[in-house]
């Protein structure tokens, strides 16, 4: 496909929970290439949220190495991480996380605002982003005036608007019904075909199967192609 955009080697993250040390991530190594559609699947408590935070540069590794686009995340300060999040990563959350007081257009504009794009270009790019997810006519609506699926599309537009290297989706369909879920997944597939790198985190095998590549995580450890876990997940 292309050069690896994410290189993770021997990543460790532990938490102290009630005096007990929990290995949320235990010696995780993975390479993700540009243009991939990767699904990370795992049950709750498996460490997938920790991995997602790590991939999204919301957290720094305790040991091990994380290179994003050739840059060492472990050596960055908070401000540099904020810039990386702003420019390299687009987040899509389970509960959308739109700012309720801002209109759809303003929500999409937000990442551009923080990267200092001038007003006119910001507006144009945000409108273009909304157009991509088919919500151009809802630009002035508040999130509360939109349906769940529409809100998630706005969130996708927000994630895309800064032209990030990777799209990071954490249970993007978790709060949606199955019909809307399919629509959202379709949007993501289209985006992947347009060349966006997408990392999808889920506990739902059916959704994970939509991706080109699947890895599973359990007890803080990764296994390629879902391994034997896929069998366990057949019940979903």
């Amino acid at each position, binding site marked *: 496909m292309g050069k690896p955009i994410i290189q993770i080697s021997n990543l460790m993250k532990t938490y102290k929970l009630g005096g007990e040390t929990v290995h949320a991530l235990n010696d995780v190594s993975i390479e993700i290439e540009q243009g991939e559609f990767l699904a990370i699947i795992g049950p709750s408590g498996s460490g997938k949220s920790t991995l997602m935070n790590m991939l999204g540069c919301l*957290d720094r590794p305790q040991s091990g190495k994380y290179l994003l686009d050739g840059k060492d995340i472990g050596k960055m300060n908070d401000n540099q991480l904020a810039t990386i*999040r702003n420019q390299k990563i687009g987040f899509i959350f389970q509960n959308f996380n739109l700012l309720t007081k*801002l209109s759809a257009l303003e929500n999409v504009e937000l990442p551009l*605002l923080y990267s200092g794009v001038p007003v006119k270009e910001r507006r144009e790019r945000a409108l273009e982003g909304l157009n991509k997810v088919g919500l151009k006519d809802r630009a002035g609506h508040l999130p509360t005036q939109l349906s769940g699926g529409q809100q998630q599309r706005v969130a996708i537009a927000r994630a895309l608007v800064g032209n990030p290297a990777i799209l990071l989706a954490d249970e993007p369909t978790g709060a949606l019904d199955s019909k809307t879920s399919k629509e959202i997944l379709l949007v993501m597939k289209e985006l992947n075909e347009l060349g966006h790198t997408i990392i999808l985190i889920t506990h739902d095998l059916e959704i994970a199967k939509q991706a080109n590549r699947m890895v599973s995580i359990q007890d803080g450890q990764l296994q390629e192609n879902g391994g034997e876990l896929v069998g366990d997940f057949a019940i979903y």
Partner: protein
Amino acid sequence: MGILPSIKMALKSIKGNKLRSALTMLGMVIGVSSVIILVSIAQGSAQNVTSQINNLGTNLLTINTFGTDLALTEDKISELSKLNGVKAVSPVVSGRVNVKKDRTTSQVSLTGTNAAYSTVRDAKVSSGRFITDLDLEYRQKIAVIGADTASTFFGTDNPVGQYLQIEGTSFKVVGVLVSKGSSMGQSGDNVIIVPLSTGQRLVKSTTINQVYLQGKSQEQMDFVMNEVEMKMASLYPSKSDSYSVTNQQDLMDTMSSVTDTMTMMLGGIASISLLVGGIGIMNIMLVSVSERTKEIGIRKAIGAKRRDVLLQFLIEAVVLSGVGGIIGILTGVGLGKIVSTLAGLTVSFSTSVIVLSFLFSLIVGVIFGVFPANKASKLNPIQALRYE
């Protein structure tokens, strides 16, 4: 992110939370306006008292006599006028007289005095002239009347040159006094001033009950007071119980200490309300920041730096406290004006009090807005995002 988009974003956020913004500003408005109203009323009444006392004449000493066993005759009074430091002396006989003009009759307080009275008691004429020393000498039947007396007997006509019947004798009005308003319970406008010699006849007594002395300068008043007391003691040995010498400065000092205490007290009460307003701001700010933890998390996740978050909350706090303070100033000044017209109180707005109360509330608002925002901006975005 630049300053301008930050300001726009802060304004949007204020507009988006109208109730919260209004509540925050309410604390400021109440605090600032109550300080302004209370202090300006206190200062207004202090000014009022001072100007009323000054209306009685400046650098004034008064000799009052009690009973009739003290003969304050003109030659002894002229000895007082020779004292160093005394600028002018004005002896006074007073009483109440019946005044008649056509069918209008009224009781008016009569003052018989000399030409110096005009300067000593700060009694200026608005039309005509004051009494002269020649009038005293020739026992002229002329009168200078107060503004109220003039309107009682002459209405809107010009009284100068017209005649009044005082105790049955016809007097020519030669002047009308400038209105002074009432001070210390005495109406300064319902009076008739006649030459001393004529006045003594009208009240049927030669006793001079009061002498006003004007000192040359304010700094010398204590010295002049001593001089006058010593002179009186030598003129009337062993009769010190029959007269008293009072210095107007003493009265002024007493009154100003009273009004100072009042200003302090009202200012203190107002400061408490400002403090309570400040605590109100603090509470609302704390609540609003913790209520917005998730918002901060989202903003940080999509690339807001600590500085961006802080700046947004700082601008919001400054705008809220600033606008609240300005509304408070307007409310305070407006209510002060209303109070002064409705209750007839004098209010005096002091710029320093307005500026100080505004700055205080602004600083309280900013500190208590930024303090929790600073905490929130340091939050790990993961935790902030999980916050519900």
